[in-house]
């Protein structure tokens, strides 16, 4: 007993140091890969328009240029938000029944169904969307089949906002499906049985028991989908042609064709603030701890 005590005291000093030492690699990676680029972008947003020199000048003209009401940026901004919101809501309606099936109905088949939804992710998004183009384009698979069956072909399905939305729903499917499934899986089976036994009908069980307990998963799914859909570029470009310009396109344009890094940086900063602000606003209203019952009301 007495011999163990001194060694314990010795090790205490060492023990408090090593977790910090172990964290250093992650901190370096985060610093170099995440924080440093963000700082560079922030600094560039204050540089003279169309220049590439950092820290040579300080101007707010990039921001004032963007916030101007006549700027077409606003149109793209509204389109991106609208498409992301629509994707989010529609995806929730589509994925909830599937999540319910995966948790409660499919049984042995749940694994197969899950794999069917994961499998397309192994193929690059670009390739999948080009596949859609081949399917939907005038003279493609859809029109060809319709004409082969004897009906009037010539359907103009592509290059419109509806198609962009469909493409976004398709690509963001797993990002909504799996968090919602996880959320639903957190609802214990006997809770629903007990609610039924106490007199609740199917709708009441869903509203009072399933939805509140699954809500964290649903929220995470919606947030993830919204953030990803807001920054989505490929669907608008491949499926939509020039019908809709999304905000990510504007950012890319500023950095490439327009050769205006400061403008692009300023836009990036504004978008980061927008999404960051949204996320924080939602999480301040929705207290996950309270939903999960970890805190007193």
């Amino acid at each position, binding site marked *: 007993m007495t011999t163990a005590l001194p060694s314990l005291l010795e090790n205490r000093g060492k023990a408090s140091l090593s977790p910090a030492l172990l964290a250093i690699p992650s901190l370096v990676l985060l610093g170099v890969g995440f924080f440093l680029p963000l700082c560079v972008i922030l600094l560039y947003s204050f540089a003279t328009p169309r220049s590439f020199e950092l820290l040579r000048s300080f101007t707010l003209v990039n921001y004032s240029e963007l916030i101007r009401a006549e700027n077409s940026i606003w149109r793209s901004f509204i389109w991106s938000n609208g498409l992301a919101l629509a994707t989010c809501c529609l995806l929730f309606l589509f994925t909830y029944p599937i999540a319910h099936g995966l948790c409660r109905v499919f049984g042995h088949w749940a694994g197969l169904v899950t794999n069917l939804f994961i499998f397309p992710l192994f193929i690059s998004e670009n390739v999948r969307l080009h596949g859609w183009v081949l399917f939907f384009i005038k003279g493609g698979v859809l029109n060809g089949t319709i004409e082969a069956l004897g009906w009037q072909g010539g359907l103009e399905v592509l290059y419109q906002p509806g198609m962009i939305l469909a493409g976004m729903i398709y690509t963001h499917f797993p990002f909504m499906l799996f968090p919602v499934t996880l959320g639903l899986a957190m609802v214990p089976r006997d809770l629903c049985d007990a609610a039924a*036994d106490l007199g609740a009908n199917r709708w009441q069980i869903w509203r009072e028991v399933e939805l509140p307990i699954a809500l964290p998963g649903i929220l995470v799914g919606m947030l993830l989908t919204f953030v990803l859909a807001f920054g989505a570029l490929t669907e608008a470009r491949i499926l939509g042609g020039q019908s809709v310009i999304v905000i990510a396109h504007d950012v890319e344009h500023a950095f490439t064709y327009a050769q205006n890094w400061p403008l692009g940086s300023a836009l990036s900063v504004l978008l980061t603030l927008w999404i960051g602000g949204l996320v924080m606003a939602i999480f301040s209203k929705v207290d996950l701890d309270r939903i999960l019952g*970890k805190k007193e009301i």
Partner: protein
Amino acid sequence: MDAVNLQSQEFSTQRSYSSTPVLQLIGVSKAFGSFVAVHKVDLDVYEGEFLTLVGPSGSGKTTLLRMLAGMEVPSQGNIILRGNRINDLPPNLRPTCLVFQSLALFPHKTVGENIEFPLKVRGVGAPERRRRALELMATVHLPENYYRRNVMHCSGGEKQRVALARALAFDPEVLLFDEPLSAIDYRLKKVLQKELKELHQATRKTFVYVTHSLEEAMVMSDRIAVMHQGRLIQVGSPEEIYERPANRFVAEFMGDVNIIRVKRREKDLIWSGEDVDGSFCVLPPPGEPDICSAYIVIRPERLRVLRPHETADNILIGEIHNRYDLGSRIQYQVRVGEKMMLVEVSRSQASSLSLQMEVTLGWNASDAFTVVS
């Protein structure tokens, strides 16, 4: 073997429940694929009684309870509630309430919201709900300030009480319990058993309770139904089941017991032992006066260690092999030939006994019970 429902005169006067069955199970069976969980059970549940279903794991008692609740549909047979067949009635329309083993409390709701849930889904207004919830909390001895507390912040015993209050909220006719006390420590279990019994007497509702612990069954029940491998073996009061078991399984399940296989030599009361040597005076099993092969069942507390001047109808001589201190009594394992017998004596008598001592065990014919299988 069909259910044996003994109605003895000396016990009926002590019954606190009525003689009308509120629930009747007639030929109820349940199969899951090829596995038969419950096999042709006939059982009457009387209004206001505390009936316990006991049996080892896999005996079908939980499946039977779930069929009463409406969670499972019987494969065969009928469940009758006050004369109406309720086989297909869903759980939310039945006047029964099941208290789960895990309690199934809603973790995202407060104590008050949990208790009010059955009232809320029935459209009762908020002030009335609150009044009723506080009333129920008083009945189950929960302090008023627990109303706003999140249910996951309560202790095990408090959670039990919330589950009970919630079950009583919509005034069900039959309360069903699925081993609610099995995961609780001994002292709290004793307290809750007493409270459950008091609640039963106060509310006068019908309680159907499932447990694998025979001690719990003996302490709380008006009647016990013993199940084994999906079949109902015996139904009766705790005394009847303990003193007059239907077969060896029930005898062994209800506690430590000595069983001797015997064969009748002639048509009289003298039988000879098959697994121990000796002739025994045995009363034939009830309802089978002519049977020639049976088992004697003697409880350790009915068996006596005979002092030098004492005598009994039946005696066995053996050597003390082991000693078990049970607190108020001492139990001895006595080797008689190839067999181990268990005998219980008082502490004062035990002081004169020691290991490897030769003792004479004795019992009268009326101290034992005879079973056929």
